[in-house]
């Protein structure tokens, strides 16, 4: 599977008719009920909705962490639901980055080593991995804490290290699950800005699941989910511009 070499305006992920249910006790619970969605590269797409609406499950299917009961997930035209477990791991290794609500950093490793660790599995040399890790830490303004261990870092700093770990692989797809929910206002805003910048500057497909209003404001595109289906969809910046335009028109009109 190969991502397009040039930044294209077309969607990088296209999902059709995704269904997924879980069995709780003896009762099957339908989590996703025929969800179809396409996600574009170079922008921050946000899936928002109340807890239990199925947004995290959708993220796990789109990122290849789980397989759907029915439906397809095409990434750059290839269906990843047909890949074997091994091929799926390879796909994740080469193309995806992940951010989770918990930062999940190894207590024994310094920030630099946390970022360097997955790069070794990509087959990078030690020197190359170190250079990339340093660059990634710099990108999230954590170069000064490169030799600190998680116990010496604040929550916001840990999440920035986790972002650097995801970014150092230079993934074309970045998935984030409630990345700001454990962080205070300023740190949360910081993470939002980084995600936004990654999408814009690297042309990365950034798909984020959250109910954090800060993220909703800063997303390029928001998909509201409810009861296992995508409901409303809007573009906050666009809407704001329209609103601003409408406001200014109104003022002119009044004048």
């Amino acid at each position: 599977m190969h991502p397009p070499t040039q930044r294209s305006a077309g969607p990088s992920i296209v999902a059709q008719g995704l269904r997924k249910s879980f069995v709780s006790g003896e009762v099957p619970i339908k989590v996703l009920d025929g969800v179809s969605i396409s996600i574009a590269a170079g922008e921050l797409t946000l899936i928002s909705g109340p807890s239990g609406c199925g947004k995290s499950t959708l993220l796990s299917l789109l990122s290849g962490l789980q397989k759907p009961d029915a439906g397809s997930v095409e990434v750059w035209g290839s269906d990843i639901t047909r890949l074997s477990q091994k091929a799926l791991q390879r796909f994740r290794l080469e193309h995806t980055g992940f951010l989770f609500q918990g930062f999940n950093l190894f207590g024994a490793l310094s920030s630099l080593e946390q970022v360097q660790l997955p790069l070794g599995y990509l087959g990078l040399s030690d020197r190359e991995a170190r250079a990339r890790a340093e660059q990634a830490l710099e990108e999230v303004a954590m170069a000064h804490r490169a030799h600190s261990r998680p116990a010496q870092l604040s929550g916001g700093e840990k999440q920035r290290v986790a972002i650097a770990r995801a970014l150092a692989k230079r993934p074309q797809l970045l998935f984030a699950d409630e990345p700001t929910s454990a962080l205070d206002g300023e740190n949360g805003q910081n993470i939002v800005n980084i995600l936004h910048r990654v999408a814009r500057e690297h042309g990365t497909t950034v798909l984020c699941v959250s109910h954090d209003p800060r993220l909703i404001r800063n997303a390029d595109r928001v998909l509201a989910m409810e009861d296992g289906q995508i409901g409303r969809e809007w573009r906050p910046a666009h809407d704001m511009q329209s609103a601003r335009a409408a406001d200014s028109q109104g003022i002119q009109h009044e004048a």
Partner: protein
Amino acid sequence: MISLARKSLRHEWRKFLPAILALSFSGLLLIAQAALVLGIFGSAAVYVTASSADLWVGYPGTKSVSFGRTLSPDLAMRLRMDPDIRAVESYIWVDGDWRGKARQQGAVSVYVSGIDTRAEAMMFSRVLPAALRARLREPGAVVVDPADLDQLGAHVGGSAWINGQPVQVVGVISGLRALGGVNVLTSLDNARLLDSTTSPADSATYFVAQLRTPGSLAKVRARIQANPAFGAFELWSAKEFASRSQHYWLFDTGAGVAVFFMAIIVCLVGAVITSQSLLALVVASAREYATLNALGVSFQSLARVLVEQSMWVGAIGLLIGGLLSAALLSLAALHGVPVSMSVPVALLCAVLVLALAFVSGLLATRGLWRADPAMLLR
């Protein structure tokens, strides 16, 4: 490549301590057990290993030195006539009852070894100094191990009775302790006096001999055993006869099965404790491992990290266990406990400890099943 295994071990060594100690103690138990087995069962062959004879001639089918029977003196003649044999001497084994001076003390079973007292004699030449050997010529003179003095109620210079005959302890030497009784050295003449059975004069329980050239044993054996005129006998090399005696005690008495059984229990308990404490560590870091898997690091690679980690734990455990064992064994040897260790057996124990670590590491990879990246999404 960042070694997660070594980094974790260095910075979170406290978490690994239970596993390291479990392996250290498994190693210590295995080594201590092996040393005791070697020490105790090695003493079953002390008559052979403390002597410089190349070949032993005894009653056919004798399973252990202590089970010898009387041989005809003609046999010694036949041995002396062989061109490849340099020296022959008699060795007499007498089972005795030792009674001390104190009336209230009961009898102690002793194994009397009647040996040649010439300076160049072979029997016990590795432990018995020439001067003390010469003193055995005195009537009733005996030598025992200092660790057995208490049991015998004796002291150097003191007297006692064996099979009703008076004896006197003329000296002590270490390295004589026996299995199931007390070894007592005396001269051939003294031993014949202590022997209550009526054996013909010049007969012996064993004849031991030295070869002119070390490699000629097979030739000698073929020549001597071909002639049935000298009664029933069998000929062994010293090495064969020593291991025959040890094998008898280890395998024919059931002691070996008990030792083997104990070793299995040690390994089993060691593996359970080690794998459980390693498993707890894996489960505690399940979210971190799951994140690596989400980033595409395969379960096989993660399992390799765990096995590498357990092998390091094994190596450190082995080092600690080895040092503890060395200290314990020297302490035991200092107090006269029969312990002994050989390089092959020590290596076998080391390999067992590392195998334990390896198996425990493999068992601990079960914890990775909990490291499903889907669990990180909520």
